[in-house]
């Protein structure tokens, strides 16, 4: 899953005071500011802005095998938002968001709260172990799980055999959704746990002392104090998870080849865009699908951030 980073404002902010007297100084400072931001600006321009503009231009054209290239305005977008394959993909990732994000958040929150409460050597070890899956590249992780799920190589058959059961087929139509949720939770819960853990560490311990003096139990402290104190971090990981899940690609794409048709070429919007571009050579429509997905993500994230603006402090 891809993550979008929040970009920082330019380092050198113009000083507002003493405009007349400081004109020369501030201009010189501004020049240095541009110099320092230049490397970043170049990379941003070359690797993000230019490709985006190029893709947008592509999405306004249509190239057919028999007819050649022509300008079609927003016809590709109209096609995308009425394309049942695209819409079924959007529905799938929305469903994933509804199921996956709460699971991820609960798992990472519980882990963070436990690790925050414990200070033994075991806690430090556990923290590392929970975080390790995040260090495994998503593609490798998905491949690994593919083998674990495999009916003939995977350990499932054996494990289930111990208690006299037969293992489920993890790639069956009705199971593949759960199999994917499991992989993503395994991969990302540790990362979110670290964010929450860091936020917990930042809370002033005197607040806990005050709570203890007032007679709060450890559980009450966790629920009534710790969770509200890190609400903005919870919102942050929720937005990360939302954007990542809507762009779901790596894991289903890796498992596609083993999943006997349970994961189709339009399972998620990103897989669909990839197939349309590189398998069907329709770069125009693929660009439109990608932008259409971008619109869905933007609207989704905005609505969500607006709804939680009091908690998150992300929008004032």
């Amino acid at each position, binding site marked *: 899953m891809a993550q979008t980073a929040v970009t920082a404002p330019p380092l050198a902010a113009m000083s507002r005071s003493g405009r007349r007297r400081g004109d020369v100084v501030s201009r010189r400072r501004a020049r240095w500011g541009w110099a*320092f931001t*230049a*490397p970043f600006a*170049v*990379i941003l321009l*070359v*690797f993000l802005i230019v490709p985006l503009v190029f893709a947008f231009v592509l999405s306004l054209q249509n190239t*057919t*095998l*028999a*007819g050649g290239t022509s300008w079609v305005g927003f016809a590709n977008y109209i096609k995308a938002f009425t394309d049942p394959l695209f819409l079924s993909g959007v529905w799938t990732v929305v469903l994933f968001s509804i199921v996956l994000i709460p699971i991820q958040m609960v798992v990472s929150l519980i882990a963070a709260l436990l690790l925050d409460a414990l200070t033994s050597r075991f806690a430090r070890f556990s923290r590392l172990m929970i975080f390790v899956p995040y260090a495994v590249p998503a593609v490798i992780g998905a491949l690994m799980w593919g*083998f674990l799920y*495999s*009916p*003939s*190589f995977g350990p499932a058959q054996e494990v289930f055999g111990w208690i006299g059961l037969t293992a489920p087929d993890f790639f069956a*139509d009705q199971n593949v959704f759960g199999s994917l949720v499991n992989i993503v939770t395994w991969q990302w819960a540790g990362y979110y746990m670290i964010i929450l853990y860091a936020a917990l560490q930042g809370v002033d311990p005197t607040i806990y002392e005050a709570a203890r003096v007032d007679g709060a139990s450890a559980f009450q402290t966790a629920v009534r104090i710790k969770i509200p104190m890190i609400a903005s971090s919870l919102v942050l990981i929720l937005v990360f998870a939302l954007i990542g899940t809507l762009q779901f690609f790596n894991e289903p794409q890796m498992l596609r*080849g*083993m*999943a*006997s*048709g349970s994961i*189709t*070429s339009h399972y998620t919007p990103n897989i669909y865009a990839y*197939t349309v571009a*590189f*398998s*069907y*050579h329709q*770069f125009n429509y693929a660009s439109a699908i990608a932008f259409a997905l971008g619109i869905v993500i933007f609207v989704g994230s905005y609505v969500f951030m607006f709804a939680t603006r009091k908690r998150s402090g992300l929008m004032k």
Partner: protein
Amino acid sequence: MKRLLAAGGALALLAVTLTGCSGGGSGSSCQNKIMHSDATQVSMWAWYPNFKPVVNLFNKTHKKVQICWTNAGAGNDEYTKFSTAIQAGSGAPDVVMLESEVVPSYIADGSIVNLSTLGADKLKDNYSEGAWSDESKGGDVYAIPVDGGPVGMLYRKDLFDKYGLTVPTTWDEFAADAQKLKDAGAKTLMTDFPGNGRAYQTALFAQAGSEPFELTGKTDMKVDLDDQASNKVLSYWNDLVQKKLVGTEDASTTDYNTHLVNGTYASVIAAAWLPGYLQGFTGADKSAQWRVAPVPQWDPANPVQINIGGSAFAVSNQAKDKKAAATVAEGIFGTEAAWKLGIEKAALFPLWKPILESDYFKEKAYDFFGGQQINKDVFLTAATEYKGFQFSPFQNLVYDKLTDAVNATNKGKQQPAQALAGYQKAVVSYAKQQGYKVTE
């Protein structure tokens, strides 16, 4: 301050190297040595196993043209890069290896050039009619055939003997054998009918007479995917699937590869290139005895031969020196010496007649098949009697829709007729979007 400057410097350097990377994309790094450095260089993408000696042989024997070969990935990996490079207008190789099934796609979008205008027609007699027509459109050839995939039935003699099966010559006998296996309580299934068979199902449909595509002119095409022949074949297989006489697991997975050799399946309907891979799969039965028989027939009085896979060399529209590129495409596998390397080291099935019809190839005995002369027994007939098959100019999409259809029947969600009707509808609608005038 010093540290800050150093950090800034490092960052700037990083920026330069990063942007530098994007600038010089089409690096000329060959995976082979150039032997005559002042000769015209022709870049080539190909993924044949053990291909380097073949390239070296060409370079040694050609003073004016040299091949610069790169393995840019197999199948779709290469096509993805090739299509992107064509779209970008630069970065494509001069000569590119393509499977026959994608050649019509690249002819349609103009990515590869007409080799008939570069004098390739003189080679026509070196290839079978089917092989040549697979790479042609409207009488012009666009790629030079290299290897083919004539189909036979690879089977486990030890398992056939154990369960008293006779080698089937018709599909009815094949189904009877499958039933016999089940009645004997064997864990072994007769074969697999994978949802992602793609070329496999297409070939099986073609054997019964399906000719789904016809391209006339630039924008006229006939699409007929739910014809009687396809219906007959899919119903036949769906019957076996629903009775659990054949498997339905996806092909080309690690699991599947192991199942091919560990006795899960008693036979596999496959092209001549599969044995080369079978030997490398892990988990094989020690006692396995493989043999090859001709593919079962619908009408044994009028046998029809089929083909799966096979590849060719085409010249891309970005080739600077198209004449030199054509020389490479025509010449690389145009000698007996090159073919001996291809056959011995890469287990390729040649389409070049001088070697195909040679005694050397005919009489070659294969240890893997207990010394059976598989070419003489099966594959030569299959190759020479293969009449060719017209693929669509958007075959990847067609395969994806076929995959949907076969999965739907395999999982019992749809009846064969219904699934094929959906297949037809999806492909026709796509063809129309692409600007074709479609007749059904």
